[in-house]
């Protein structure tokens, strides 16, 4: 019998003063060249598990750790994080805090220098790794000038160059667009072929379907531990796992298929084999209606270094719409939104609100009409109570003190945080902090609300809650602009999509039309959600599983 590369037995972890253990009796094994996906809702114990594997717990985070972790047959108990290098390589979500050098080759060299390798060995490994990750030719570049996907690939390359036996990746693709995500996953496939075992944390197992196994944690315990195919089928059946059901499996499960396909290719083959017929007529995309609220004409913006960030962007935002601004990392989405809300002055072009042009110094006043919720709530939260935080905006805008309680109550009701006025935002969970940030913008009563990646870092139930809240805000009369690279979310909730690539708007159309053109999406570094891809391949365009179920004539 071969010894598994990683053997985790009865792993338990309890943080000091925590009422419950973060991990309870977790056991699994992993052989060389295979990949395990760790999934589960927020607080399930995924990151804790990764940190135990890399000995971050207890080296940096004290905790009561029990159980056994064997790496290539040897216990790692009692070792420090740095002593596990190079046997264990770890990569974390935030790539910015994992880049320490001013040139790409030096970033990769850093770990090799710490291992004390001779210079010629380092050069050979750097060249080999750079070509492996598709960064050959960028050796002299400053990592700060790379795209998000390139930065994360560089971080993984820096770890891969150490030739680890086990690679632990804690949400390495969360901040990446679909193209960057695909790059990272292709890289993990290469490393597995080279013999490394990979543990990867991902909220969306369907995106990592090539992995051998899925381990879903729930409240620190193993909820399911199955081969990937069975696990994806299980996500479509078991809604208590806190995971987004794998769309392809979900479609076939709900169509009554006993052993449902789990990939697009399998799905197409099944549909063809069974001759399920697509509907012939589809309702045409609904053109935007509603009064024009915000109009931008030929906006241009350059970064201080002179690089063109937004080119000739023209768009109209109408009352009551949910508009998704889509595009890859660095495509200009955030900059465009900052221009729309007056945070950045355009170099050229015009902006009009309710038909009236807004010029120069008046741009600052746009904040009263266009609110902007930043991606990371921690970049704005500062007050010691939720009430103080939510009052901050309207107070600055001169709302009378006697009107503030009503504003706070209304904003907190909109985000379902009533009764938490006196709570300290810093001790709240990430999803709640995101809601406080939304409430702190809503309290100033802007007509338009821009949310920059509002679901990043949230699990599936939290993502759905966030989107339900946005739908309620729309019903209450707000107009929503959503910046996102979560494709299923845009497909399901947006009315219209604005597609950006290299600072330009390359499409502005109803969301159905945006997702009907995969080639155009690919030019923007994006790809349609699996269910849309399946529908398109079968001549039956659909944005959601429900829609495809309605549009396919099924046969037993």
């Amino acid at each position: 019998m071969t010894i598994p590369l990683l053997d985790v037995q009865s792993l338990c972890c309890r943080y000091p003063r925590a009422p419950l253990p973060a991990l309870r009796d977790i056991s699994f094994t992993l052989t060389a060249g295979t990949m395990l996906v760790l999934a589960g809702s927020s607080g399930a114990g995924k990151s804790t598990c990764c940190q135990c594997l890399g000995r971050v717990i207890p080296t940096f985070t004290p905790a009561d750790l029990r159980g056994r972790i064997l790496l290539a047959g040897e216990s790692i108990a009692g070792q420090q994080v740095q002593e596990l290098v190079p046997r264990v390589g770890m990569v974390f979500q935030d790539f910015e805090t994992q880049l320490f050098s001013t040139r790409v080759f030096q970033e990769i060299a850093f770990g090799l220098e710490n291992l004390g390798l001779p210079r010629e060995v380092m050069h050979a490994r750097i060249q080999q790794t750079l070509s492996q990750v598709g960064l050959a030719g960028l050796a002299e570049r400053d990592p700060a000038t790379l795209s998000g996907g390139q930065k994360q690939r560089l971080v993984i390359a820096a770890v891969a160059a150490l030739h680890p036996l086990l690679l632990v990746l804690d949400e390495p693709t969360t901040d990446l667009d679909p193209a960057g995500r695909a790059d990272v996953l292709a890289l993990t496939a290469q490393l597995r072929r080279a013999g490394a075992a990979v543990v990867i944390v991902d909220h969306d197992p369907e995106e990592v379907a090539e992995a051998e196994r899925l381990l879903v944690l729930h409240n620190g315990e193993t909820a399911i531990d199955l081969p990937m195919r069975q696990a994806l089928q299980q996500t479509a059946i078991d809604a208590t796992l806190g995971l987004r059901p794998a769309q392809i499996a979900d479609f076939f499960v709900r169509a009554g298929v006993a052993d449902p396909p789990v990939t697009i290719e399998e799905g197409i083959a099944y549909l063809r084999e069974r001759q399920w017929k697509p509907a012939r007529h589809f309702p045409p995309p609904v053109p935007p209606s509603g009064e024009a609220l915000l109009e931008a004409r030929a906006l241009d913006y350059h970064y201080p270094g002179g690089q063109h960030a937004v080119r000739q962007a023209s768009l109209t935002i109408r009352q009551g719409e949910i508009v998704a601004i889509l595009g890859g990392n660095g495509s200009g989405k955030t900059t465009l939104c900052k221009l729309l809300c007056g945070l950045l002055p355009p170099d050229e072009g015009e902006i009009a609100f309710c038909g009236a042009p807004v010029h120069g110094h008046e741009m600052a006043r746009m904040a009263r009409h266009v609110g902007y919720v930043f991606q990371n709530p921690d970049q704005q939260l500062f007050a010691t109570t939720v009430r103080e935080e939510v009052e901050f905006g309207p107070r600055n805008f001169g709302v009378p003190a006697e009107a503030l309680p009503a504003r706070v109550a209304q904003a907190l009701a909109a985000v379902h945080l009533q009764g938490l006025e006196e709570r300290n935002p810093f001790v709240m969970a990430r999803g709640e902090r995101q809601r406080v940030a939304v409430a702190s913008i809503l309290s100033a009563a802007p007509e338009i609300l821009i949310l920059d990646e509002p679901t990043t870092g949230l699990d599936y139930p939290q993502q759905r809650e966030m989107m339900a809240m946005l739908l309620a805000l729309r019903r209450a009369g707000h107009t929503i602009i959503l910046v996102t690279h979560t494709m299923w979310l845009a497909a399901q909730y947006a009315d219209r999509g604005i597609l950006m690539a290299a600072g330009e708007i390359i499409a502005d159309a109803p969301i159905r039309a945006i997702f009907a053109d995969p080639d155009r999406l690919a030019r923007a570094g994006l790809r349609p959600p699996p269910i849309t891809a399946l529908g398109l391949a079968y001549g039956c365009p659909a944005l959601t599983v429900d829609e495809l179920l309605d549009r396919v004539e099924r046969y037993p």
Partner: protein
Amino acid sequence: MTSSTPFPLNRLCPAARIVLLIITFGWMLTFTHPLTALIPFLIALAGVALARGGALLRRLAPLLLLLMGMTIVIWTLLTPAGAVLCRLGELTISVEGLSHATAMALRLSGMMIAGMAFIAATPVEELRVGLSQLGLPYPMAFAIGLAFRLVPVFSTMLQTTIQAQQIRGHLLDSGGTWHRMRNYAPLIIPVILLSLRNTDRLAVALAARGYGRVGARTSILDHRWQWSDTLVIVVAAVIGGLSVWQGRM
């Protein structure tokens, strides 16, 4: 892959660059006459060109000009001794005051420019090597280099926080002195908390790349002290020494 760009200042060993910077600073501080202070100022400018630091100089030029202008105004007004050029009410502008102020502006801006030349010529990795070569323990040299590396990261963080508060109508320069000081709280608190969080992550990420392992470290950069480094340092030290001696005469 190259370990340094071919520009002349970059060819010096990092330790030699640090020593040269210290000598240049000392040299600049010895001159009190504007004409003599102009010599090291021009040499520092040439150093920027030799280090390919033109872009950095252009970016910081407004700050540099502001520093020079303010220095000349303040020191002229603070040094009223000597032949009077003109009087502006209570304020006296003298020839000596103006001369002293100009020399002071050239010294301060010259030091800034020399610093720019050093920064342009020395990536943080080479700074680490240089400090280690001069005998600083590696963890300290690494920490200094990392601090430089993180400046842009913290600057971006601060900019984002400023925008996040600006969108909520926050104005930094409203109200009296106490109120203005309090206005900084919504900026400082998120930045400090984020910095602390990032520092934790950074420490883990460093350890995950083997930083702090027991055993000898190696370096991919091949910067050994050469005879040319010795030559440059000796020449700079001799000129500096002569300047000091001249100044005492």
